[in-house]
Protein backbone atom coordinates (compact mmCIF):
# COMPACT_ATOMS: atom_id res chain seq x y z
CA UNK A 1 0.00 0.00 0.00
CA UNK A 2 2.81 2.37 0.99
CA UNK A 3 4.72 1.46 -2.18
CA UNK A 4 1.62 2.21 -4.27
CA UNK A 5 1.20 5.62 -2.62
CA UNK A 6 4.87 6.40 -3.22
CA UNK A 7 4.45 5.42 -6.88
CA UNK A 8 1.42 7.73 -7.26
CA UNK A 9 3.29 10.57 -5.53
CA UNK A 10 6.25 10.05 -7.85
CA UNK A 11 3.93 10.00 -10.89
CA UNK A 12 2.27 13.21 -9.69
CA UNK A 13 5.67 14.83 -9.22
CA UNK A 14 6.76 13.90 -12.77
CA UNK A 15 3.50 15.14 -14.28
CA UNK A 16 3.51 18.35 -12.26
CA UNK A 17 7.10 19.05 -13.34
CA UNK A 18 5.97 18.62 -16.93
CA UNK A 19 2.97 20.90 -16.32
CA UNK A 20 5.35 23.55 -14.96
CA UNK A 21 7.40 23.28 -18.13
CA UNK A 22 4.36 23.40 -20.43
CA UNK A 23 2.75 26.31 -18.55
CA UNK A 24 -0.18 24.13 -17.54
CA UNK A 25 -1.04 23.05 -21.09
CA UNK A 26 -2.41 19.54 -20.49
CA UNK A 27 -2.67 18.91 -24.26
CA UNK A 28 1.12 18.78 -24.45
CA UNK A 29 1.20 15.75 -22.17
CA UNK A 30 0.96 12.17 -23.39
CA UNK A 31 -2.38 10.32 -23.37
CA UNK A 32 -1.61 8.42 -20.13
CA UNK A 33 -0.53 11.58 -18.34
CA UNK A 34 -3.65 13.41 -19.52
CA UNK A 35 -5.82 10.65 -18.08
CA UNK A 36 -3.92 10.93 -14.82
CA UNK A 37 -4.52 14.70 -14.66
CA UNK A 38 -8.24 14.21 -15.33
CA UNK A 39 -8.46 11.75 -12.45
CA UNK A 40 -6.10 13.44 -10.00
CA UNK A 41 -7.43 16.57 -8.21
CA UNK A 42 -3.90 17.60 -7.12
CA UNK A 43 -2.51 17.53 -10.65
CA UNK A 44 -5.64 19.24 -12.08
CA UNK A 45 -5.19 22.03 -9.57
CA UNK A 46 -1.52 22.41 -10.49
CA UNK A 47 -2.42 22.47 -14.20
CA UNK A 48 -4.91 25.32 -13.66
CA UNK A 49 -2.53 27.25 -11.41
CA UNK A 50 0.36 26.84 -13.86
CA UNK A 51 -1.78 28.13 -16.69
CA UNK A 52 -2.74 31.19 -14.64
CA UNK A 53 0.90 31.72 -13.65
CA UNK A 54 1.91 31.56 -17.30
CA UNK A 55 -0.62 34.26 -18.16
CA UNK A 56 0.63 36.48 -15.34
CA UNK A 57 4.21 36.25 -16.58
CA UNK A 58 3.13 36.80 -20.17
CA UNK A 59 1.57 40.09 -19.08
CA UNK A 60 4.58 40.93 -16.92
CA UNK A 61 6.89 41.15 -19.92
CA UNK A 62 6.88 44.79 -21.05
CA UNK A 63 5.94 45.48 -24.69
CA UNK A 64 8.69 45.73 -27.30
CA UNK A 65 10.43 49.09 -27.55
CA UNK A 66 11.14 50.11 -31.17
CA UNK A 67 13.69 52.70 -30.00
CA UNK A 68 16.01 49.92 -28.84
CA UNK A 69 15.90 48.27 -32.28
CA UNK A 70 16.45 51.63 -33.99
CA UNK A 71 19.38 52.41 -31.69
CA UNK A 72 21.03 49.08 -32.36
CA UNK A 73 20.55 49.30 -36.12
CA UNK A 74 22.04 52.81 -36.22
CA UNK A 75 25.13 51.57 -34.38
CA UNK A 76 25.82 48.52 -36.56
CA UNK A 77 27.59 50.20 -39.48
CA UNK A 78 30.03 52.35 -37.45
CA UNK A 79 30.85 49.32 -35.29
CA UNK A 80 31.54 47.27 -38.39
CA UNK A 81 33.82 49.89 -39.93
CA UNK A 82 35.71 50.29 -36.66
CA UNK A 83 36.05 46.52 -36.35
CA UNK A 84 37.49 46.25 -39.86
CA UNK A 85 39.99 49.03 -39.20
CA UNK A 86 41.04 47.40 -35.95
CA UNK A 87 41.36 44.01 -37.68
CA UNK A 88 43.44 45.56 -40.45
CA UNK A 89 46.00 47.18 -38.09
CA UNK A 90 47.84 43.95 -37.13
CA UNK A 91 47.82 42.85 -40.79
CA UNK A 92 49.29 46.17 -41.93
CA UNK A 93 51.84 46.13 -39.12
CA UNK A 94 52.89 42.57 -39.87
CA UNK A 95 53.15 43.25 -43.59
CA UNK A 96 55.33 46.24 -42.80
CA UNK A 97 57.49 44.07 -40.57
CA UNK A 98 57.74 41.43 -43.30
CA UNK A 99 58.81 44.06 -45.85
CA UNK A 100 61.33 45.56 -43.43
CA UNK A 101 62.67 42.08 -42.70
CA UNK A 102 62.90 41.26 -46.42
CA UNK A 103 64.66 44.55 -47.14
CA UNK A 104 67.12 43.99 -44.30
CA UNK A 105 67.93 40.51 -45.55
CA UNK A 106 67.63 40.96 -49.30
CA UNK A 107 68.29 44.67 -49.88
CA UNK A 108 66.24 47.45 -51.49
CA UNK A 109 64.95 46.77 -55.06
CA UNK A 110 66.32 49.07 -57.74
CA UNK A 111 64.14 52.01 -58.78
CA UNK A 112 64.29 50.78 -62.38
CA UNK A 113 62.00 47.86 -61.56
CA UNK A 114 59.21 50.12 -60.33
CA UNK A 115 59.48 52.55 -63.24
CA UNK A 116 59.24 49.74 -65.80
CA UNK A 117 56.12 48.07 -64.35
CA UNK A 118 53.34 49.75 -66.43
CA UNK A 119 52.56 48.63 -69.94
CA UNK A 120 51.15 45.42 -71.41
CA UNK A 121 53.31 45.44 -74.51
CA UNK A 122 55.92 42.79 -75.20
CA UNK A 123 58.56 45.44 -74.71
CA UNK A 124 57.10 46.36 -71.34
CA UNK A 125 57.06 42.74 -70.16
CA UNK A 126 60.60 42.07 -71.33
CA UNK A 127 61.66 45.27 -69.55
CA UNK A 128 59.93 44.07 -66.38
CA UNK A 129 61.57 40.65 -66.66
CA UNK A 130 64.93 42.33 -67.25
CA UNK A 131 64.32 44.53 -64.24
CA UNK A 132 63.44 41.53 -62.07
CA UNK A 133 66.58 39.79 -63.27
CA UNK A 134 68.62 42.93 -62.47
CA UNK A 135 66.94 43.16 -59.09
CA UNK A 136 67.72 39.53 -58.34
CA UNK A 137 71.39 40.08 -59.26
CA UNK A 138 71.49 43.25 -57.20
CA UNK A 139 69.86 41.64 -54.16
CA UNK A 140 72.15 38.64 -54.41
CA UNK A 141 75.15 40.95 -54.48
CA UNK A 142 73.77 43.08 -51.62
CA UNK A 143 72.92 39.97 -49.61
CA UNK A 144 76.41 38.62 -50.12
CA UNK A 145 77.89 41.98 -49.13
CA UNK A 146 75.54 42.24 -46.16
CA UNK A 147 76.47 38.74 -45.02
CA UNK A 148 80.11 39.75 -45.08
CA UNK A 149 79.60 43.14 -43.47
CA UNK A 150 76.71 42.63 -41.02
CA UNK A 151 76.68 40.50 -37.92
CA UNK A 152 74.96 37.15 -38.79
CA UNK A 153 72.96 37.46 -35.53
CA UNK A 154 71.47 40.70 -36.84
CA UNK A 155 70.50 39.03 -40.10
CA UNK A 156 68.94 36.14 -38.21
CA UNK A 157 66.95 38.61 -36.12
CA UNK A 158 65.72 40.35 -39.27
CA UNK A 159 64.70 37.01 -40.71
CA UNK A 160 62.86 36.17 -37.50
CA UNK A 161 60.98 39.48 -37.61
CA UNK A 162 59.88 38.66 -41.14
CA UNK A 163 58.69 35.20 -40.10
CA UNK A 164 56.81 36.55 -37.06
CA UNK A 165 55.11 39.10 -39.30
CA UNK A 166 54.06 36.32 -41.64
CA UNK A 167 52.73 34.26 -38.71
CA UNK A 168 50.65 37.22 -37.53
CA UNK A 169 49.21 37.60 -41.04
CA UNK A 170 48.25 33.92 -41.09
CA UNK A 171 46.75 34.09 -37.58
CA UNK A 172 44.67 37.14 -38.47
CA UNK A 173 43.48 35.52 -41.66
CA UNK A 174 42.36 32.47 -39.65
CA UNK A 175 40.27 34.73 -37.40
CA UNK A 176 38.38 35.88 -40.46
CA UNK A 177 37.48 32.34 -41.38
CA UNK A 178 33.76 31.76 -41.81
CA UNK A 179 31.95 29.91 -39.07
CA UNK A 180 30.82 26.48 -40.11
CA UNK A 181 29.21 24.04 -39.92
CA UNK A 182 26.25 24.72 -37.68
CA UNK A 183 25.38 22.37 -34.88
CA UNK A 184 21.89 21.06 -35.41
CA UNK A 185 19.58 22.22 -32.64
CA UNK A 186 18.23 19.34 -30.68
Amino acid at each position, binding site marked *: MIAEEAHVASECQTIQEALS*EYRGEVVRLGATERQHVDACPGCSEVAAA*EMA*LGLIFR*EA*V*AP*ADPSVVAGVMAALRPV*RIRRRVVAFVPVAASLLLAVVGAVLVGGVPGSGVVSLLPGWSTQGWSAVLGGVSDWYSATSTVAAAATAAIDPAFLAAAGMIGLIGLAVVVATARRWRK*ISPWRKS*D
Partner: protein
Amino acid sequence: MAVTGKTEKLSDERLVELALDGDEDAYGALVRRYQRRLTAFLGQLVGDIELARELSQEAFIRAWSALERFDPRYRFSTWLFRIAHNLGIDHLRRRRLQTVGLYRTDSDGDEVEVVVAALDKDPLGHLENRALAEELHQVIDNLRPEYRELVLLRHFGGLSYQEIAEFKEMPLGTVKNKLFRAHSVLRKALAVFV
Protein backbone atom coordinates in the same frame (compact mmCIF):
# COMPACT_ATOMS: atom_id res chain seq x y z
CA MET B 1 15.99 48.81 -43.15
CA ALA B 2 13.48 46.63 -44.93
CA VAL B 3 11.59 44.27 -42.71
CA THR B 4 10.79 41.21 -44.74
CA GLY B 5 8.56 38.42 -43.51
CA LYS B 6 10.98 35.96 -45.07
CA THR B 7 13.85 37.12 -42.87
CA GLU B 8 11.69 37.00 -39.77
CA LYS B 9 10.92 33.33 -40.39
CA LEU B 10 14.53 32.20 -40.68
CA SER B 11 16.21 30.29 -37.86
CA ASP B 12 18.70 31.99 -35.55
CA GLU B 13 21.53 29.99 -37.09
CA ARG B 14 20.69 31.10 -40.62
CA LEU B 15 20.28 34.71 -39.53
CA VAL B 16 23.70 34.65 -37.84
CA GLU B 17 25.23 33.20 -41.02
CA LEU B 18 23.68 36.02 -43.06
CA ALA B 19 24.79 38.60 -40.50
CA LEU B 20 28.34 37.26 -40.74
CA ASP B 21 28.14 37.91 -44.46
CA GLY B 22 27.36 41.54 -43.62
CA ASP B 23 23.56 41.38 -43.86
CA GLU B 24 22.43 43.99 -41.34
CA ASP B 25 18.74 43.23 -41.95
CA ALA B 26 19.34 39.65 -40.84
CA TYR B 27 20.85 40.91 -37.62
CA GLY B 28 17.93 43.32 -37.31
CA ALA B 29 15.59 40.32 -37.38
CA LEU B 30 17.53 38.81 -34.47
CA VAL B 31 17.31 42.10 -32.58
CA ARG B 32 13.54 42.25 -33.10
CA ARG B 33 13.23 38.60 -32.09
CA TYR B 34 15.01 38.98 -28.77
CA GLN B 35 14.73 42.65 -27.80
CA ARG B 36 11.53 42.38 -25.77
CA ARG B 37 12.60 39.33 -23.79
CA LEU B 38 16.14 40.55 -23.25
CA THR B 39 14.93 43.91 -21.95
CA ALA B 40 12.41 42.22 -19.65
CA PHE B 41 15.09 39.90 -18.28
CA LEU B 42 17.52 42.76 -17.72
CA GLY B 43 14.75 44.88 -16.20
CA GLN B 44 14.25 42.28 -13.49
CA LEU B 45 17.98 41.81 -13.05
CA VAL B 46 18.85 45.48 -12.55
CA GLY B 47 15.44 46.68 -11.34
CA ASP B 48 15.22 49.60 -13.76
CA ILE B 49 13.47 49.36 -17.11
CA GLU B 50 15.18 52.42 -18.63
CA LEU B 51 18.57 51.06 -17.72
CA ALA B 52 17.51 47.64 -19.02
CA ARG B 53 16.78 49.20 -22.43
CA GLU B 54 20.24 50.76 -22.52
CA LEU B 55 21.88 47.53 -21.44
CA SER B 56 19.99 45.43 -23.97
CA GLN B 57 21.01 47.86 -26.72
CA GLU B 58 24.61 47.54 -25.54
CA ALA B 59 24.30 43.73 -25.45
CA PHE B 60 23.11 43.61 -29.06
CA ILE B 61 25.93 45.89 -30.21
CA ARG B 62 28.51 43.80 -28.34
CA ALA B 63 27.10 40.62 -29.84
CA TRP B 64 27.36 42.18 -33.31
CA SER B 65 30.97 43.21 -32.65
CA ALA B 66 31.88 39.73 -31.46
CA LEU B 67 29.79 37.76 -33.94
CA GLU B 68 32.88 36.28 -35.64
CA ARG B 69 33.96 34.81 -32.32
CA PHE B 70 30.55 33.24 -31.65
CA ASP B 71 30.93 29.53 -31.02
CA PRO B 72 28.31 27.73 -33.14
CA ARG B 73 28.24 24.79 -30.71
CA TYR B 74 26.01 27.00 -28.57
CA ARG B 75 22.69 28.61 -29.38
CA PHE B 76 22.63 32.29 -30.30
CA SER B 77 19.98 32.89 -27.63
CA THR B 78 22.10 31.56 -24.76
CA TRP B 79 25.17 33.43 -26.02
CA LEU B 80 23.23 36.68 -26.27
CA PHE B 81 21.70 36.23 -22.82
CA ARG B 82 25.12 35.51 -21.38
CA ILE B 83 26.45 38.79 -22.80
CA ALA B 84 23.43 40.62 -21.39
CA HIS B 85 23.70 38.86 -18.04
CA ASN B 86 27.39 39.81 -17.73
CA LEU B 87 26.55 43.41 -18.59
CA GLY B 88 23.82 43.46 -15.95
CA ILE B 89 26.06 41.92 -13.29
CA ASP B 90 28.89 44.35 -14.13
CA HIS B 91 26.46 47.22 -13.77
CA LEU B 92 25.22 45.96 -10.39
CA ARG B 93 28.82 45.62 -9.16
CA ARG B 94 29.66 49.15 -10.26
CA ARG B 95 26.52 50.48 -8.62
CA ARG B 96 27.45 48.74 -5.39
CA LEU B 97 30.89 50.31 -5.53
CA GLN B 98 29.37 53.73 -6.08
CA THR B 99 26.93 53.38 -3.18
CA VAL B 100 27.56 56.00 -0.53
CA GLY B 101 27.16 54.49 2.90
CA LEU B 102 25.09 56.40 5.41
CA TYR B 103 25.39 55.39 9.01
CA ARG B 104 23.04 55.53 11.96
CA THR B 105 23.35 54.36 15.52
CA ASP B 106 21.15 51.43 16.46
CA SER B 107 19.51 50.74 19.85
CA ASP B 108 22.68 49.03 21.11
CA GLY B 109 24.75 52.10 20.27
CA ASP B 110 26.48 50.41 17.31
CA GLU B 111 26.97 52.19 14.03
CA VAL B 112 25.12 50.41 11.21
CA GLU B 113 25.06 51.18 7.52
CA VAL B 114 21.84 52.42 6.00
CA VAL B 115 21.38 51.39 2.40
CA VAL B 116 19.32 53.96 0.54
CA ALA B 117 17.14 52.39 -2.09
CA ALA B 118 17.75 53.78 -5.56
CA LEU B 119 14.82 55.46 -7.28
CA ASP B 120 14.66 52.84 -10.00
CA LYS B 121 12.03 52.73 -12.67
CA ASP B 122 9.68 49.84 -12.11
CA PRO B 123 10.17 47.05 -14.68
CA LEU B 124 6.56 45.94 -13.99
CA GLY B 125 5.24 49.48 -14.31
CA HIS B 126 3.22 48.63 -17.43
CA LEU B 127 0.99 46.20 -15.50
CA GLU B 128 -2.44 47.72 -14.93
CA ASN B 129 -3.10 45.53 -11.91
CA ARG B 130 -0.85 47.34 -9.41
CA ALA B 131 -1.60 44.90 -6.61
CA LEU B 132 -0.42 42.04 -8.81
CA ALA B 133 2.66 44.01 -9.92
CA GLU B 134 3.66 44.72 -6.33
CA GLU B 135 3.03 41.15 -5.20
CA LEU B 136 4.91 39.72 -8.15
CA HIS B 137 7.83 42.07 -7.51
CA GLN B 138 7.88 41.01 -3.88
CA VAL B 139 7.64 37.31 -4.60
CA ILE B 140 10.41 37.36 -7.21
CA ASP B 141 12.63 39.38 -4.89
CA ASN B 142 12.09 36.92 -2.07
CA LEU B 143 12.88 33.82 -4.11
CA ARG B 144 16.11 32.00 -3.33
CA PRO B 145 18.81 33.38 -5.69
CA GLU B 146 19.22 30.02 -7.47
CA TYR B 147 15.47 29.91 -8.18
CA ARG B 148 15.19 33.61 -8.95
CA GLU B 149 17.69 33.51 -11.80
CA LEU B 150 15.99 30.51 -13.40
CA VAL B 151 12.57 32.16 -13.09
CA LEU B 152 13.89 35.33 -14.74
CA LEU B 153 15.46 33.37 -17.60
CA ARG B 154 12.33 31.30 -18.10
CA HIS B 155 9.54 33.82 -17.71
CA PHE B 156 11.11 37.14 -18.62
CA GLY B 157 13.84 35.88 -20.95
CA GLY B 158 11.47 33.33 -22.49
CA LEU B 159 14.19 30.68 -22.69
CA SER B 160 13.27 27.01 -22.94
CA TYR B 161 14.37 24.56 -20.25
CA GLN B 162 17.02 23.25 -22.64
CA GLU B 163 18.35 26.76 -23.27
CA ILE B 164 18.45 27.48 -19.55
CA ALA B 165 20.37 24.24 -18.96
CA GLU B 166 22.86 25.35 -21.61
CA PHE B 167 23.08 28.88 -20.21
CA LYS B 168 23.62 27.70 -16.65
CA GLU B 169 25.72 24.68 -17.70
CA MET B 170 23.43 22.60 -15.55
CA PRO B 171 21.80 19.19 -16.22
CA LEU B 172 18.33 19.50 -17.73
CA GLY B 173 16.85 17.45 -14.88
CA THR B 174 18.21 19.92 -12.33
CA VAL B 175 16.67 22.83 -14.21
CA LYS B 176 13.31 21.04 -14.30
CA ASN B 177 13.44 20.24 -10.62
CA LYS B 178 14.50 23.71 -9.51
CA LEU B 179 11.91 25.44 -11.66
CA PHE B 180 9.25 23.10 -10.34
CA ARG B 181 10.19 24.04 -6.77
CA ALA B 182 10.30 27.72 -7.70
CA HIS B 183 6.85 27.41 -9.26
CA SER B 184 5.50 25.81 -6.09
CA VAL B 185 6.65 28.88 -4.18
CA LEU B 186 5.18 31.21 -6.81
CA ARG B 187 1.85 29.39 -6.91
CA LYS B 188 1.48 29.63 -3.15
CA ALA B 189 2.55 33.25 -2.95
CA LEU B 190 0.33 34.34 -5.85
CA ALA B 191 -2.61 32.09 -4.88
CA VAL B 192 -4.94 35.09 -4.80
CA PHE B 193 -4.20 35.86 -8.44
CA VAL B 194 -3.93 32.35 -9.92
